[in-house]
């Protein structure tokens, strides 16, 4: 039987989930170097993004998990690499070492470890513990991770806000850490730093010239930039704007907000990524209603479209909390968090219709986000990397005709 050419093999493997591909690393050296090659990793990721496949829903409450719901998402427990301290009565279980076998170190539902989710991009998620002592980039699909090195904190750590994105120009994953706090003489302290995965280091960038309004929300990555809700005038949170930080130029600018109803006092704005487009959930808290907007054409004010209006009927409470989470079936369905309930909206027809609720969710406070499965590797010193690296290098060396004895092969 004739062997399929590499391009067709790549085409086939591109369609497989990450776990299967990790298993197929040991089929042969050529499969290993194919699956580990940056070109294939991108090809696989682009296909996943294009077809919106292999997506996971991420919930953070006292522990992190992810799920399969309505066949759109997978649901499984996420064992993350943050250090866990087990309660006293669990002496037999050692704290999970960073890099240990995660499955053998399951979460205790009672563990009080609070994890903050700082966004996801191309299958990589950024998480930290509540105190921001440990910040980690983690790919749950490949189970690889990178601990971000320590960097100076000019404000108390609790003020740090992170955002994760990808700079296609330098082919690098970047984390932006911003801090804003008031100093002892009422002066505003500002600090902004960018971590680059390639250099594995932090460096200072210019400070954000606006004030962050919701300092507990992470930057939302859309169209090469991280987005935050800000105010141009310090401490004037009524005048909200959207600021973006371009990961390529590393500069800030403002983006037009949707034309929401200013006569109703808008309390909270949540930004989000709906199918690669920036969304803005506008909450009119004291009117019991909220709108979900989407920016159809990036950067164009006129292209903000109101997708949904959610109003409360109950009289007893007029507070509302709506946040758009995910875009499914090419926009036919939208997943939102409405007052701690994960709710589907059917977007066919002119107005979104409430289509159902995700069952089995925790009734308490949680944050929801999504990530896709990708092969993006965050660690450097794996056997597979060494073997793949040596195979690739051999191919490069051949044309030169030099000696090809390599130490890498063990």
């Amino acid at each position, binding site marked *: 039987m004739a062997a399929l050419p590499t391009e*067709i093999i790549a*085409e086939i493997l591109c369609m497989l989930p990450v776990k299967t591909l990790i*298993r197929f690393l040991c*089929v*042969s*050296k050529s499969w*290993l170097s194919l699956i580990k090659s940056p070109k294939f990793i991108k090809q696989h990721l682009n296909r996943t993004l294009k077809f919106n496949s292999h997506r996971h829903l991420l919930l953070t409450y006292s522990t992190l998990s992810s799920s399969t719901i309505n066949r759109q998402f997978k649901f499984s427990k996420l064992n993350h690499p943050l250090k866990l301290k087990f309660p006293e009565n669990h002496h037999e279980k050692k704290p999970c070492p960073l890099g240990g076998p995660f499955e053998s170190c399951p979460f205790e539902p009672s563990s009080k470890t609070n994890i903050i989710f700082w966004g996801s991009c191309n299958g990589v998620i950024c998480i930290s513990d509540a105190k921001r002592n440990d910040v980690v980039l983690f790919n749950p699909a490949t189970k690889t991770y990178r601990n971000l090195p320590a960097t100076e904190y000019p404000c108390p750590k609790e003020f740090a806000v992170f955002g994760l994105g990808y700079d296609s120009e330098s082919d690098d994953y970047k984390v932006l850490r911003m801090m804003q706090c008031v100093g002892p003489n009422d002066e505003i302290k500002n600090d902004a730093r960018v971590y680059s995965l390639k250099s594995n280091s932090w460096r200072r960038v210019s400070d954000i010239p606006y004030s962050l309004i919701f300092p507990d929300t992470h930057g939302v990555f859309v169209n090469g930039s991280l987005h935050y809700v800000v105010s141009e005038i310090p401490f004037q949170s009524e005048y909200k704007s959207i600021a973006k930080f371009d990961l390529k130029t590393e500069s800030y600018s403002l983006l037009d907000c949707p034309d929401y109803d200013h006569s109703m006092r808008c309390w909270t704005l949540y930004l989000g990524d709906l199918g690669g487009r920036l969304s803005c959930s506008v909450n009119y808290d004291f009117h019991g209603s909220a709108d979900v907007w989407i920016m159809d054409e990036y950067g164009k004010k006129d292209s903000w479209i109101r997708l949904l209006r959610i109003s409360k009927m109950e009289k007893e409470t007029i507070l509302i909390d709506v946040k758009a989470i995910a875009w499914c079936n090419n926009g036919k369905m939208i997943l939102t968090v409405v007052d701690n309930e994960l709710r589907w909206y059917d977007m066919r027809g002119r107005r979104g219709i409430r289509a159902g609720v995700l069952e089995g969710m925790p009734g308490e406070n949680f944050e929801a986000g999504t990530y896709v499965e990708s092969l993006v590797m965050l660690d450097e010193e794996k*056997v*597979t990397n060494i073997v793949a690296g040596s195979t690739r290098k051999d191919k490069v060396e051949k044309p030169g005709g030099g000696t090809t004895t390599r130490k890498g092969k063990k």
Partner: protein
Amino acid sequence: MASSSSSSLSRVVVKSSDNNLFVVNKKVASQSQLLKQCIDNMEEKGTNDVILIPLSNVTSNILTLVLEYCEKHADFADDDNNNQELKQWDHEFLKKFDYATLNSLTMAADYMVTKSLLNLCCQFIADSIKDLTVQQIRQIFDIKNDFTPQEEADIKNENAWAFR
């Protein structure tokens, strides 16, 4: 492209690698970009004769299958790939073949530039190998294991979670 009907071909003859001839209606042949290109080129030259297109890489049993696919798909518009009936037919069509035939069919689709058949074959193979073991994969794709036992064990150990 020639506009006069006199130089427009209605049929072509395709020759397989084992020298069998297939008379193919133009609409069916056009499902393959390779055949379509040949037809367009001949029409541009104003040929009235029935043209012969030799396919040195495709055996007659595989060519029969490619043409069966093209014939079915020629009845549907290009943007009709989501048609349920067609999807069902595609699935039934591929279901009958063993991996060797699927491989040859995939290569023929690639060679004849029949993009939708190529995608279909790739997706079908991907779906069917998803849960197979490494050993089974080597068998199906006729791949020699070129790892040392130590290397293979190291890779497995490092990714033990993926083998459970």
